[in-house]
């Protein structure tokens, strides 16, 4: 006499009714609420040294001098004149 096979399992389909198959159910969802903001990418910084220009830094970090505007835009609170940056300034470098 075993402990199995006593029947009466709660999830057992009633006799004559095959177990339902939900393997092909397709689910979608949407919301009027915006999705959560993605976590901020790790921000790089660059400390200006003597002789640096934004173009030079852009060439060094992005591989193209023309990308200096990205650095300027990200540091407008620090840089009043893009032609004048000073040694020791800590610039944010956007990804």
């Amino acid at each position, binding site marked *: 006499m075993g402990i199995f096979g006593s029947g009466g399992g709660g999830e057992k389909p009633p006799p004559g009714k095959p177990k339902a198959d939900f393997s092909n159910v397709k689910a979608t969802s949407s919301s*009027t609420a915006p999705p959560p903001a993605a976590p901020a990418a790790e921000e790089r910084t660059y400390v200006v040294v003597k002789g640096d220009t934004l173009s030079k830094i852009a060439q060094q970090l992005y591989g193209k001098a023309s990308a200096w505007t990205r650095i300027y835009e990200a540091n407008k609170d620090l840089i009043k004149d893009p032609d004048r940056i000073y040694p020791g300034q800590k610039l944010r470098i956007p990804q």
Partner: protein
Amino acid sequence: MKRSACAALVLALCAGLVTACKKAEAPPAPAAAPPPAATPVPAPIHVVDISLGKSLNADQTVAEPTTTFAPTDKLIASVKTDGASSHATLTARWTYEDGQTVNESSKAIAPSGPAATEFTLEKPDGWPTGKYQLEVLLNGASAGKRDFVVQ
């Protein structure tokens, strides 16, 4: 007559003087400025309503709430929330009468006020008839259940 007229004149002058003095009194202090309106703190997100239906309005609410579906219908749940959260997870857990999980899907939202989130289920070969239940969870905690049938 002259005396009484003179007295009346004096009295009138005095009365005028009193009036003038009253007018010269310092103006009443201006009413205290109303306290600055407190910045309303948004309520934390909470589930307001869970509706089931077969089609949606443009605002993600159920067009005609029902708890009876045909095997070929889409099963649509619309969950109305209120309050704010920078990251909340709504989960729709659908189960069949035998306890089987039909589907469980989640949606991450960041509402700043009232919002509606819909979950839609489709089964190309039709839903088995029987009793079903939808349970909605907000951040893992049950926020409500709705029973419905497919017949």
